[in-house]
């Protein structure tokens, strides 16, 4: 305790306290009147996680990495007919259930980092309070709906080299391979469809 600086005149501390409270009183308050005035959140704040299920390969990485085990995934295997006649029949995972229990979720975002196929995205939406805790578990279709609220990614820095994926895609395109049939049926992510979400 630095006694040298304490209370040079008796009562100075008391006056200082009064001055502080008075100053606070005449400055505008910090209260955010939330339901009537929406907060101005940063564009990429962590509100809710959206599922872009067409990208999901049921690799289960997100569920395994989740620190509080709030992601539930069910799937089954389906045979895929051989691509060419005479070829071998393959199988692929089909997603049956993808649910996030937001009553458990701690918004760490590890699932989004862990997803190798860009199937999970942060959305800034946060108004999904419920009266029943069971309703806090968002099923696949509800998670799908959050995708429309995901904002577009920030633009690259000017002059920056194009991302690797774009290069790879350009090379693939240059090879002029005919596109796969199921690629054409994919819905576009919202930002590519020109919808800026939210």
């Amino acid at each position, binding site marked *: 305790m630095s006694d040298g600086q304490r209370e040079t005149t008796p009562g100075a501390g008391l006056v200082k306290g*009064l001055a502080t409270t008075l100053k606070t009183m005449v400055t505008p308050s910090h209260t955010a*009147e939330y339901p009537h005035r929406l907060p101005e959140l940063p564009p990429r704040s962590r509100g809710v996680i959206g599922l872009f299920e067409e990208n999901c390969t049921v690799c289960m990485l997100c569920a395994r990495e989740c620190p509080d085990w709030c992601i539930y995934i069910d799937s089954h295997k389906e045979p895929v007919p051989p691509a060419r006649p005479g070829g071998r029949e393959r199988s692929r995972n089909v997603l049956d259930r993808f649910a996030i229990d937001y009553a458990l979720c701690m918004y760490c975002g590890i699932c989004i980092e862990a997803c190798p196929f860009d199937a999970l995205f942060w959305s800034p939406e946060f108004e999904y309070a419920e009266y029943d805790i069971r309703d806090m578990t968002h099923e696949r279709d509800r998670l799908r709906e959050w995708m429309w609220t995901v904002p577009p990614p920030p633009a690259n820095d000017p002059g920056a080299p194009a991302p690797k994926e774009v290069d790879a895609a350009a090379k693939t395109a240059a090879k002029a391979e005919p596109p796969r049939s199921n690629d054409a049926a994919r819905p576009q992510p919202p930002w590519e469809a020109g919808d800026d979400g939210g």
Partner: protein
Amino acid sequence: MNVAVEVAVRVVLVFAAFLLFPLVVGYMEHKAMAHMQGRLGPMYAGGFHGWAQLVADGVKFAQKEDIVPADADRTVFKLAPWIALLPYLLVLVVVPVGPGGLVGSDVDAGLFYALAVMSVGVVGAVMAGYASANKFALLGGIRVAAQLMAYELPLVLSAVSAAMAAGTLSLGGIVGAWRPWWLAWQLLALVVFLVAGVAELRRPPFDMPVADSEIIFGPYTEYTGLRFALFLLAEYAGIVVVSALATVLFLGGWKGPVLDAQLGWLWTCVKVLFVAFVVIWLRVSFPRLREDQLQRFAWMGLVPLALAQLLLTAIVKVAIS
């Protein structure tokens, strides 16, 4: 018959002030305290900035169950809020609001009457503490009594100083004799009176008797519903009364810069609300004293100061007369 009508009007006005002013002070506390803490305070009840918040609170209290603990001394328990509340109503009667008899009742020994009646309130808190059959309530009741005893003395001594300066105990007479330079002459008494008054009201920073972190809510721990609301009303009525007495004794009551005769009541109201604001301001700014600090402060700080003020008042008064 004429006298009866006049008395009725006075009684009704006093009673209206008794019900209205505590609400105004309570609302002011809500808002001032909120803004001093960077908040907004109530915003919804009644529409405009939550003006009806306390009315809504009253409605809520009236609908709550009234619980008397099984071990409680029922009669005393139920009677305690009356004893805590009614003295403040009685004091309000003698507070002059404007010149020319604008007062509930011009009692000749008004100042002494006010101090004596206010001291009855202590019995209400002790009754509440004893009758609740709760250790925390009892401790709170004892603390209330000890605190009121300690601070009654500087309060009365500083009030005597005003009476000495004016040479009368009538509250109207004191305001009549008041001159602006008394502010400097009686400054010490004003400070002592305000501090002791806040302590009498058991308001922070002197809220040891209801210190929630130690003894729950002191003597009021077991109270619910309307009876609890009556204790709260007593607290705010107490602020009004102490502010009004400080106004009358030291701040010149109805005397203002202009139009004393016409606007006297307005000056009084403004001054009372200002002093009440200071009481709220003190609450927000300072932390609570400890019980031993509290007693020490009264006996070794305020009492000597008040005695010094008495000496000063006596000397100046004899010198000028």
